[in-house]
């Protein structure tokens, strides 16, 4: 089945995504970028460049490098007089008063230029996915009129795409957060601060359809303005300190822009950042370095006016929608600039709501478009919307340890089995204690069920193989079975509603696991040390018995003494003590084993039997063993 791609055809950058196995994935372009500059250039030697290469040659060829074509889509020449003066390429009037751009001696309709961008995206998507792509969902601003939407659709057709739907950018953003599944009559505010434009939209969801209640914005406000504010500040600081104007030096400016952007991003997570640009310029007296410290507070001061410019349009959009801020139920952020904490704080200040987070704001529109594409294709079937297990599921093993078989956030239905064994010689039964939770220790998790598997034939510990299987079906019903692979005996339990926990319950259990984390870790350490010590003592005792006749009685009794000492401290709960005695035993046995080998080779005997017993460990089975259930 051919894939549908979702395309965010932006003013400065474009982005595309598709569904893979029902999950949206952003498709990187051929250069490896997750977004592609919406720039098309016609070089003097007749080449056509799209994306990053087009942008990189802009200064050598400004009159033939077309950017911001979106501002001209579907508009009449008479409507774009302001935009025309900003762009360095030539904008003419075509038939019917349409816009034509005049580049490289040829006239192109804006649709054709946009089609070139779409063509590149399509080709890169095909290369990435390894299959042909024909269907696309393309997004447009909510305020686009019919002519602008038609033009966008035409651009898609020229690029060889079957445009299955044109959807609004804010709608796509809301879809990316799954807000269409939140129930009817939701009101959503979408705050989109992109590279060069600011759009705010109020949406209302009714009957699964999003309706745009109002839109507002500022066509010339975006991340570029913020970057420039930082660069201007750096230039002014350097001028003050060194008396040199960096704004005339293109390389210095380039470095300032990059450093400014980096600082801006860093200040989203830290309170202060260092801007270091060694050898930024040179004077007859020697090289000059730029070394500035920028705090988040300073950044906010520098961009305060820009930030304030978002307030008016947002309030106006609310007013036009006939809503007060308190009536907004969801806030969605779009555009890289919305990562800035001050922007988020401003949005919260206006709406009183914490915005949705989690989807990359540069990609959220393309992701939503891809989801819409999947819906239209029928790819997103309800029966295939699968749940995840909210908490880990597993069993209790020796010493009260919780051994998870199915990790939390595993998509169900799923099945997992593991082989366990007995902890004692001749243990006739094992208890399977099924638990749910995130603590390492069973006692802090929730019991879902218990059962016993009886009738295990007498055997040394670690020998019986007991396969424990967890199977969760699509409805969250858990079947746990334990099977003695030796006898074929099987026992099982069915647990219903195990994953039917409310969010509150899940949160509470996660919090409890957190609260007991340190204690559980300490308990776990003790149990591990004890289990390890016990198993070592057991193995050495066994080997000792087998080889007693070949050993000096003094050596043997030393080992025996160490075993006794170790067993004496097992119940103390003192990890260091147990470990120390474990080491002491290990050392005594190593010496004994050396003597054993020395004897063996002296007697020219094959030592394979001893070698085996040295390595004798129940490697075939998991080291997690059952606690003793019924030792009698």
């Amino acid at each position: 089945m051919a894939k549908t791609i979702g395309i965010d055809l932006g003013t400065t950058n474009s982005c595309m995504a598709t569904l893979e196995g029902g999950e949206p994935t952003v498709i990187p372009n051929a250069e490896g970028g997750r977004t592609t500059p919406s720039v098309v250039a016609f070089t003097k030697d007749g080449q056509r460049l799209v994306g990053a290469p087009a942008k990189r040659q802009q200064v050598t060829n400004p009159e033939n490098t077309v950017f911001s074509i979106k501002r001209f889509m579907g508009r009449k020449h008479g409507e774009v007089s302001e935009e025309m003066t900003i762009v360095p390429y030539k904008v003419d009037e075509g038939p019917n008063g349409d816009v034509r751009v005049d580049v490289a001696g040829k006239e192109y309709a804006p649709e054709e230029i946009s089609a070139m961008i779409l063509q590149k995206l399509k080709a890169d998507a095909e290369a990435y996915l390894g299959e042909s792509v024909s269907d696309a969902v393309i997004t447009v601003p909510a305020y686009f009129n019919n002519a602008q939407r038609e033009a966008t659709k035409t651009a898609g057709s020229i690029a060889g795409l079957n445009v299955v739907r044109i959807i609004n950018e804010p709608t796509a953003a809301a879809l990316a957060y799954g807000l269409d599944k939140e129930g009817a009559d939701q009101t959503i505010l979408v705050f989109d601060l992109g590279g060069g434009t600011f759009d705010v939209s109020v949406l209302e969801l009714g009957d699964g359809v999003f309706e745009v209640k109002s839109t507002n914005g500022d066509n010339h406000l975006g991340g570029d303005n913020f970057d420039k504010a930082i660069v201007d500040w750096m230039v002014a600081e350097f001028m003050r300190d060194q008396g040199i104007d960096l704004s005339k030096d293109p390389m210095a400016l380039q470095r300032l822009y990059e450093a400014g952007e980096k600082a801006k991003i860093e200040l989203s997570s830290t309170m202060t950042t260092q801007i270091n640009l060694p050898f930024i310029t040179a004077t007859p007296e020697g090289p000059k370095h730029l070394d500035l410290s920028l705090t988040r507070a300073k950044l906010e001061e520098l961009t305060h006016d820009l930030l304030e410019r978002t307030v008016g349009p947002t309030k106006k959009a609310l007013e036009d929608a006939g809503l007060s801020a308190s009536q907004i139920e969801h806030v969605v952020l779009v555009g890289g600039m919305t990562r800035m904490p001050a922007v988020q704080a401003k949005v919260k200040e206006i709406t009183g709501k914490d915005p949705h987070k989690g989807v990359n704001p540069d990609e959220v529109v393309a992701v939503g478009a891809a989801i819409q594409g999947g819906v239209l294709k029928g790819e997103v079937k309800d029966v295939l919307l699968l749940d995840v297990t909210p908490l880990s599921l597993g069993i209790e093993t020796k010493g009260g340890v919780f051994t998870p078989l199915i990790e939390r956030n595993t998509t169900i239905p799923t099945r997992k089995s593991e082989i366990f064994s007995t902890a004692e010689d001749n243990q006739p039964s094992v208890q399977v204690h099924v638990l749910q939770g995130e603590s390492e220790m069973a006692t802090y998790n929730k019991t879902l069920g218990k059962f016993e598997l009886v009738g295990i034939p007498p055997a040394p510990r670690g020998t019986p193989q007991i396969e424990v299987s967890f199977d969760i079906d699509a409805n969250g019903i858990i079947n746990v079975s334990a099977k003695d692979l030796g006898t074929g005996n099987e026992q099982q339990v069915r647990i219903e509603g195990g994953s039917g926990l409310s969010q509150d319950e899940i949160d509470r259990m996660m919090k409890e696991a957190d609260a007991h984390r340190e204690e559980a870790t300490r308990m776990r350490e003790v149990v591990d040390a004890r289990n390890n010590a016990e198993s070592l003592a057991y193995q050495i005792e066994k080997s000792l018995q087998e080889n007693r006749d070949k050993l000096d009685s003094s050596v043997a009794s030393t080992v025996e003494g160490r075993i006794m000492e170790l067993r004496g401290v097992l119940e103390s709960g003192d990890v260091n003590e147990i470990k120390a005695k474990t080491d002491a035993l290990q050392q005594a046995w190593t010496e004994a084993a050396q003597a054993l080998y020395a004897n063996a080779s002296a007697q020219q005997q094959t030592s394979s039997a001893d070698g085996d017993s040295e390595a004798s460990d129940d490697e075939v089975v998991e080291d997690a063993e059952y606690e003793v259930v019924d030792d009698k």
Partner: protein
Amino acid sequence: MSEPQQEEQVEPEETVADDPLITVTRERDEYLDALQRLKAEFDNYRKRVARDQQELAVRAHERLIREVLPVLDDLERALAHEGDMEEGVRLIHRQLSESLAREGLTEVETDGKFDPHTQEALLSQPSDQEEGAVIQVLQKGYKLGDRVLRPARVVVSQGADG
């Protein structure tokens, strides 16, 4: 969960065992279960791959950082040292370049004509060189494998009469 699907209307027959509707319903449930399990397995596989990739990225950083640590040491030695350090810095530079080259880093070529695929024009100036030629490299560019990590920042000639 069992959502009724379009089925041919089949009149129920007396013999329950051979009722095609029952057979088909059972088969449908089995197929749906198999499909759901496959989908869930794919989801879980994807989650595992994403986790593995994250770990891999961290390990890759580790390796690179370990490569670069000696350079940091040497720079600190240079700073602690008084007087002429040109030779020392030259050695440190060579050491760092070699470490990065081992990781697959190569310099972007800047001889000849401007290439927007690997270079970025920061300025366009008149010069006696042919139009479109690179006349100055302001910042070197680098490729990691086939991919342009950073384009070379260059000044491009506008030609003699530019």
